[in-house]
């Protein structure tokens, strides 16, 4: 607005992947979602996939708005239902890469049942969860990610609940790729996302991000910089760690890294197998499972 008329018109480096006409976006200053979004766009480019073959599905919430700014086929669905919508989309058009962008409340509270079953089925999709520890869009309510004792508008004296550990949950349900980063780990997050998108099966990347407007100001993280400094000072990278050994802990070291990267047949692989007629009767009683005595 105040720029001189002679200022050069610079193109955004991600112009090809942005719905620029929709900018300015809705995210608050200091919010971590924009940083994560930028990493997602970089990762998509790094995969080398044709952009017409990439789709993003989201539910409702601040992170869900990513689907409205990315210039690929993008579906902004109902609260918590991004994963089952993405399941239908992927199975109907298996050649496409399907990304789900979701916040912590959307994904694990109202969408929790879909999350565990998609991971169990090993549907080929990449789920990106921006975890900002609360419901930001509605003004900062308690979520299944809110740390015990943290204040929100619906837990004004501190949350009485113990939160889920998303990475442990994903791993326990069968996700083949599980990572946790914070919004300051731009390079590592982008690399993880690239691997996650290319990995066949259910990939899960959690990104801790600042929500100074709704969450931080009610707790001892009032400014975005406080949260970023917290991430910087507390983060410890431990790749290839069992998520059970890397609980999300805001009192001790904040363990991040690429935790899980395993091979397991996807839903589609197993669907083809069971319909090929090559699978014997269940159970296979000929197989030795234990030794007597």
């Amino acid at each position, binding site marked *: 607005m105040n720029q001189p008329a002679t200022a050069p018109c610079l193109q955004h480096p991600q112009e090809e992947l942005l*719905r620029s006409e*929709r900018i300015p976006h809705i995210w608050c200053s200091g919010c971590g979602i924009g940083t994560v979004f930028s990493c997602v766009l970089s990762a998509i480019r790094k995969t080398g996939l044709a*952009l*017409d*073959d990439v*789709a993003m*599905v989201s539910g409702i919430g601040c992170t869900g708005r990513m*689907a*409205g700014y990315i*210039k*690929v*086929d*993008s*579906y*902004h*669905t*109902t609260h918590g*239902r991004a*994963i*089952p*919508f*993405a*399941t*239908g*989309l*992927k*199975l*109907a*058009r298996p*050649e*496409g890469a399907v990304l789900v962008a979701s916040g912590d409340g959307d994904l694990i509270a109202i969408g929790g*049942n*879909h999350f565990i*079953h998609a991971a169990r089925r090993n549907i080929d999709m990449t789920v990106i969860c921006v975890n900002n520890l609360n419901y930001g869009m509605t003004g900062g309510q308690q979520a299944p990610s809110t740390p015990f004792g943290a204040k929100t508008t619906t837990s004004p004296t501190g949350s009485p609940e113990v939160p889920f550990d998303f990475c442990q949950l994903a791993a326990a349900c069968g996700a083949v790729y599980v990572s946790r980063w914070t919004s300051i780990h731009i390079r590592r997050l982008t690399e993880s996302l690239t691997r996650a998108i290319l990995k066949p099966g259910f990939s899960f990347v959690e990104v801790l991000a600042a929500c100074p407007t709704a969450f931080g100001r009610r707790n001892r993280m009032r400014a975005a910089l406080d949260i970023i400094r917290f991430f910087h000072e507390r983060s410890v990278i431990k790749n290839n760690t069992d998520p059970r050994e890397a609980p999300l802990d805001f009192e001790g070291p904040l363990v991040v890294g690429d935790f899980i990267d395993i091979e397991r047949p996807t*839903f589609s692989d197993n*669907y083809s197998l069971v*319909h090929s007629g090559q699978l014997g009767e269940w159970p296979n009683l000929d197989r030795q499972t234990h030794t007597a005595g």
Partner: protein
Amino acid sequence: MASKAVLTGIHFMNGDEACAEGALAAGCRFFAGYPITPATEVAERMSRRLPQVGGIYIQMEDEIASMAALLGASWGGQKAMTSTSGPGFSLMMENLGLGICTETPCVLCNVQRGGPSTGLPTLVGQADMMQARWGSHGHYEIIALSPSSPQEMFDFTIRAFNLSETYRLPVLVMADEVVGHMNERVVIPEDDAIERVDRKRPSGPPGEFLPYRPEADGIAPMACFGDGYRIHVTGLTHGENGYPAMEDQAQELMVNNLVNKIKKNRDAIISYETEYLDDAEIVLVAYGISVRSARRAVRMGREAGLKLGMVKLNTVWPFPEDFIRDLAGSVRALVMPEINLGQMVLELERCAGGRCPVRLVGHAGGSIIRPGVILDAVDAVAKEAV
């Protein structure tokens, strides 16, 4: 040529199975569902048959997820369906609304049982008719068909797909437990005798395409995932470009588009049949399994010298308003048998507009309406309407 998707021939099968065969014949290649009595046989048949024709059957974690998966599959370019009954129908209302708002073709078959709540899982009901019309929040139009036999489960499911592809919305097949479970003769025609409609797809350059700009017929072409248009689809109120538009003018335009594409085409959508109407003085208006009771009542009444006729509603929504208004002006009374305590009869009464008496023959569910009970009501209204 023999096709695995179209089992041409004469069969003896139940309504649920006929529904599944109708879907396959219509081109359905994706089914997401959750077991529920009395609709489970649709899912069971699809789980066996879809892999034979290269399709996908997936059993979801609940009916919320099933409906969401249908919408995803539809945007993935496939014809998709699910089947359910009351409790599952309630859970599907959320994403039915998303399907309406985003104009997503798909088919949902509700094999109705007694309600409310868990109600009568194994026994018949027709009490979800208003839920079919208004069950999801907000204002919209819907298309619902009501089969009265296994043959119509086959035929109407095909029509449901064609209507959903033409008008771009989820279309409901409002069946019931008796139609779903009764075994009857079902004739499946030759493959090339089956009419199939596919959604309009865009053809112009991606840069100029507006995904929610209706064409002259009120319907916008649908760009599916991978077509290269890279569109945005949202359940928020949106403009022609598909982007959220949080203002009253945009709301007015979008909701009117959703409503008008059905209202303006209602003559092409509405379907009913008449029996013995030429000299009828009292007319039974029926849908679903109650058509069978009404037909029997008409024949019994005719044998006894009563001038009875019948209107059989093949589509229940949109309701045949103009036809009923005219009919009400030329008969002594209208009588509707339905297995609830008064749902579609409210619509019948509204359309009759006082031109003739309108009577309900209903009960709360669990059994069909007995033809004798319908005749008792006919006798009563005949005495009143002298």
